[in-house]
């Protein structure tokens, strides 16, 4: 069972029921569960959407789009059925927050899904979990079955006369399926390749119907927003960045873990205070602030508040909340290679700039790490990455290109240190080193 951590600076909203047995429906009710959905039933859809807009809750999957705005794009009248889709395909390297939500508080996800359904007039929701999360799927399935037994789901939810059904779904191993339109393809039983936009999911989504798709953390936050009130929730964060979020601190820190901190919390403090600083008293070399697709930050760039706008201003992105901390004994070329290898593996192959670009970058970096790079390779990698940006259906191409550009720009010297057959200055035992004969 993943270890839970805590720190005095945490503000526990989403995580307040972690470790409290809330997978049990009675326990969840005792802890104030299913009150928010009752409030929503009495207040009606317009009120819910206005609350969500006022809360400043922005998408926790990485794009940071206002959840309330997203919901408001769904047409009121629709000939086709509308759907709610919960994205629990958590796959961005460095991110493991939804893991804990499903493990400790599945009913919050269910309650949030029902509320989203009430807001946009959908009668069916899907909770999609990545295939590797089988034990979590079983927890969620149990919770859904319990909610049906209590009449919280079904033809007449909470005796209101309204219908809402939830179906759980498993993936089978594909990062790309975390992209909203690819997830819909996967749910329709197809290869997880993205769809071109527009039309956006709010208009034409799953099975061609208007669809709201939100990250599992966003959905799990919804009941808290309703219960505590939009203003109180918004006030926890910074302007236009309401509330708190789960930050996954991993890598070379003393106390890795998932911490719930207010939006805008200082990144430096997060690393040195909350996570206990760099492991073994070493020095900080770099930080990946929001999952592996976000551009790396240097130690002098981390005195910033962790909200979408401030991290954006610093030239990176808040992304999925996966903060990966890298110490000074790490080879950035190797780190870049491992990052890009992932995107090359996960590229669905639909768009050529991504399919070829990620593979090309991987090959260049592999050769570099083996000590056989050339001066021209450094510029070529950057040129290649820059030409992938914005030229694909979905953001996977960007996700590979953006960190590459940052690695090359900010650590050019380290790339140069690998030139002309020089062995990697950070080579260590147990790490496969490619040798070119």
């Amino acid at each position, binding site marked *: 069972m993943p270890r839970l951590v805590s720190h005095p600076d945490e503000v526990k909203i989403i995580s307040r029921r972690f470790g409290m047995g809330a997978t049990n429906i009675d326990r969840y009710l005792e802890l104030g569960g299913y009150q928010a959905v009752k409030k929503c039933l009495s207040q009606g859809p317009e009120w819910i959407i206005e609350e969500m807009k006022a809360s400043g809750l922005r998408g926790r999957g990485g794009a940071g789009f206002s959840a309330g705005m997203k919901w408001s794009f769904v047409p009121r009248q629709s000939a086709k059925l509308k759907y709610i889709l919960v994205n629990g395909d958590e796959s961005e390297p460095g991110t493991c927050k939804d893991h804990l939500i499903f493990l400790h508080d599945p009913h919050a996800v269910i309650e949030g899904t029902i509320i989203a359904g009430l807001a946009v007039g959908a009668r069916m929701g899907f909770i999609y979990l990545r295939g590797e999360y089988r034990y979590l799927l079983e927890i969620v399935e149990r919770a859904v079955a319990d909610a049906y037994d209590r009449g919280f789901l079904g033809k007449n939810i909470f005796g209101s006369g309204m219908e809402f059904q939830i179906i759980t779904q*498993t993936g089978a191993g594909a990062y790309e399926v975390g992209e909203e339109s690819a997830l819909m393809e996967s749910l329709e039983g197809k290869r997880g390749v993205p769809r071109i936009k527009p039309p956006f999911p709010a208009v034409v989504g799953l099975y061609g119907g208007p669809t709201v798709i939100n990250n599992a953390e966003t959905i799990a936050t919804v009941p808290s927003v309703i219960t505590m009130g939009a203003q109180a929730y918004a006030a926890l964060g910074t302007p236009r960045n309401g509330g708190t979020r789960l930050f996954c601190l991993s890598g070379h820190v003393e106390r890795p873990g998932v911490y719930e901190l207010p939006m805008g919390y200082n990144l430096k403090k997060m690393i040195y205070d909350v996570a206990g600083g760099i492991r073994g008293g070493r020095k900080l070399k770099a930080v990946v602030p929001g999952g592996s697709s976000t551009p790396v930050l240097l130690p002098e760039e981390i005195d910033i508040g962790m909200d979408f706008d401030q991290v954006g201003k610093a030239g990176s992105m808040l992304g999925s909340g996966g903060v990966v901390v890298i110490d000074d004994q790490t080879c950035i070329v190797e780190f870049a290679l491992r990052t890009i290898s*992932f995107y090359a593996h996960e590229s669905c192959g639909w768009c050529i700039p991504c399919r070829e670009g990620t593979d090309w970058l991987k090959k260049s970096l592999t050769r570099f790490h083996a000590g056989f790079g050339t001066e021209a390779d450094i510029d070529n990698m950057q040129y290649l990455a820059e030409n992938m940006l914005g030229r694909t259906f979905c953001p996977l191409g960007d996700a590979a290109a953006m960190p590459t550009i940052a690695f090359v720009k900010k650590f050019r010297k380290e790339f140069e240190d690998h030139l002309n057959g020089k062995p990697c200055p950070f080579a260590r035992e147990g790490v496969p080193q490619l040798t070119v004969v």
Partner: protein
Amino acid sequence: MSEINPETMSIFSPALAKRFDALVEMYPVKRSALIPMLLYAQDEAGYLSDAVVAEVARRIGITELEVRNVATYYSMLRFRPAGKFNIQVCTNISCMLRGAYEVYERFQEELSVGPKGVTPDGLFSVEEVECIGACCWAPAIQVNYDFHDDLKPDLVPGILSDYRGRAKGKANDA
């Protein structure tokens, strides 16, 4: 395993056949059952054999080619057997920074197999996988669907003997 049971007209166990009967009716569109069905079939059969692909295609009402087209996309689905306990070592960034490659090497050494290799007794296979969503408890692995967190190379022999014990225990029960 690939014999058709005349009662259920299925190569799967009666319980799984029944589950599949329900699964295709559950969604607005039958085909939505495809990916879960493939994964659950693989859990039981060990891999997607020709017989599995054929039955899944028949149940959904699509061609075998369409099933293969989809199945080859997803990295958890496989067309040849893995070990009874498939050890999946995450080596992505958060795990790598905390020694995942050392753990991966140790598994291969202990079992004398290479990447995606299966031990001669069919008990174990080892593969390197992408991020499994356990970054804060790195390095982490999955043995089939079970997570093991905060690993060190020295913990590898213990994990293996634990699974060997489980296999033996099951054999004795039977």
